[in-house]
């Protein structure tokens, strides 16, 4: 899911950077209103937690272990606006210190995994949990939100990669950036995320949300927010 440097043309990464910056500016305002003066240490903690969540490996059906992208579970626990900032900070640190994801692709990666994915996951969770706190329904909603948000984000990423041969090629047809067009990038990303990574993300999201629900449900933003709206 992390796009490295060299895959996106400036025609793609510059506008996506602009979209991410606008979204982040709105998110800072929104979160400031929600958590007042505490917002900076709170968001710092949320960002570190979302970074840390990616480190935990869990056994998944099929005899392997996997780790989550974490955007879905972070959105359910912290809310979509805080998740946007938290995950984007985690992605920026990953790109700068660990080399995961490119510097030119920071805007695109943040847009896919920190803007699009948390919002999709949060609203899918709200839709499927249907205002109940029943364990099985919440587990199902968390699984679906993790699964669908990751698959949709993967298709979005594939779209960004797949348009590169169309917008940036030499006259003799040589690709200058990602060489795979939409007919290859979209099925490849969609199939692997539908059959493997989406299931891992869904299971991990469900397990973590379930544990929070069992232990201290008031910590889950999606439930706190719902109780406030009642």
């Amino acid at each position, binding site marked *: 899911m992390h796009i*490295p*440097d*060299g*895959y996106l*043309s400036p025609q793609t*990464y510059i506008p996506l950077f602009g979209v991410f910056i606008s979204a982040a*500016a709105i998110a*800072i305002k929104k979160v*400031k209103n929600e958590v007042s*003066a*505490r*917002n*900076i*240490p*709170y*968001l*710092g*903690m949320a*960002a*570190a*937690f979302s*970074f*840390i*969540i*990616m*480190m*935990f*490996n*869990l*056994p998944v059906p099929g005899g392997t*272990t996997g*780790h989550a992208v974490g955007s879905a579970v972070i959105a359910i*626990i912290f809310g979509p606006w805080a998740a946007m*900032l*938290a995950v984007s*900070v985690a992605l*920026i*640190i990953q*790109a*700068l*210190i*660990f*080399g995961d994801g490119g*510097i*030119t692709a920071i805007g695109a990666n943040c847009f896919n995994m920190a803007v699009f994915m948390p919002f999709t996951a949060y609203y899918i969770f709200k839709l499927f949990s249907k205002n109940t706190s029943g364990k099985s329904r919440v587990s199902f909603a968390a699984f679906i939100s993790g699964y669908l948000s990751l698959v949709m984000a993967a298709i979005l990423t594939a779209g960004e990669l797949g348009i590169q041969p169309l917008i940036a090629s*030499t006259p*003799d*047809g*040589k*690709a*200058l*950036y990602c*060489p*795979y067009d939409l*007919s290859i990038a979209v099925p490849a990303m969609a199939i692997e995320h539908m059959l493997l990574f989406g299931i891992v993300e869904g299971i991990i999201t469900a*397990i*973590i949300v379930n*544990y*929070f629900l069992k232990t201290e449900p008031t*910590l889950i933003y999606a439930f706190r927010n719902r109780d406030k709206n009642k």
Partner: protein
Amino acid sequence: MENKIPSYLLQPVNDQPEFQKAKRARLSFLDKTIMNTASAVKSIYVQAENASKENVIQRINPYVKLIVMIYSIFIISIVSHLEAQLIITIFIFSLFIIARLKIFRVYKKIFFLATIFGFIVVLPASLNIITPGKIIFNIITINKPLHFWIYTIPQNIGFTENGFKVVSLIFLRIFNSVSFAMLIVFTTSFPSFIKSFKILGVPDTFMMIISLAYKYIFILSRIIEETYFALKSRLSGNIKNSRIRELVSGRIFFIFKKSMLIYENTYYAMVSRGYQGKVLLHSRKKLSSIDFVALIIIVILGIWIIYL
């Protein structure tokens, strides 16, 4: 003689621990998590260690380094000649030598990232199925071209000259981008590098969040490492997957509670030092002659590379 031993002590031991009943041994999740956290802590240490060295590149103002990094990575992303990319590779390597970084350690990581994303993932693009052109190495020949839906498989499948050029260009571009970013990040203290984002108009609040998150990650990584080593030392035999999931989600919850505690403490520490919700980071340092020289060299080289 009458047996006075309580009956429950004479019963065969049946209630073995849960982990001994399961069939499969699964401890790889522990090792992988410990490995991930250890690598995160190590990267932070290595970065801090390199940034504290007193060499020419380390002395350049972080604001200049940020501008140079953005400019150079932009140039790398638009240059589409292999020769130009090779010149950039040599130039960056010479900068690594000047910076006196541990070249083998840093380049091992750069090669790893560039090989995965710039070679393995892109290699199929050198086939004529993806990049049409003159075949220079034929792999297989089928009876006739195959067509299904939007896909066409040609009669001869092989590597093309154009395909190799595409793969080489993407490999070098990724290699150069990653190495230049690492050169800058590894020669600058992370907090001062983040502060230099101010020159791009990034709000102080956002920079403060990144700085705090960076410190929290370090603390939390250490906590995970320690708790996982403790967990590993207590586990033996086989453990059920459901039990593992319970254990890991418990650890995640514990980390969350620990993070909340650290955040509360940080907040109160900030309040006691006069924090009222507004952040104002220190003003920038003045530019020295070495900063101007670095800036001019990079700008001229960048323009020369574009027109090469």
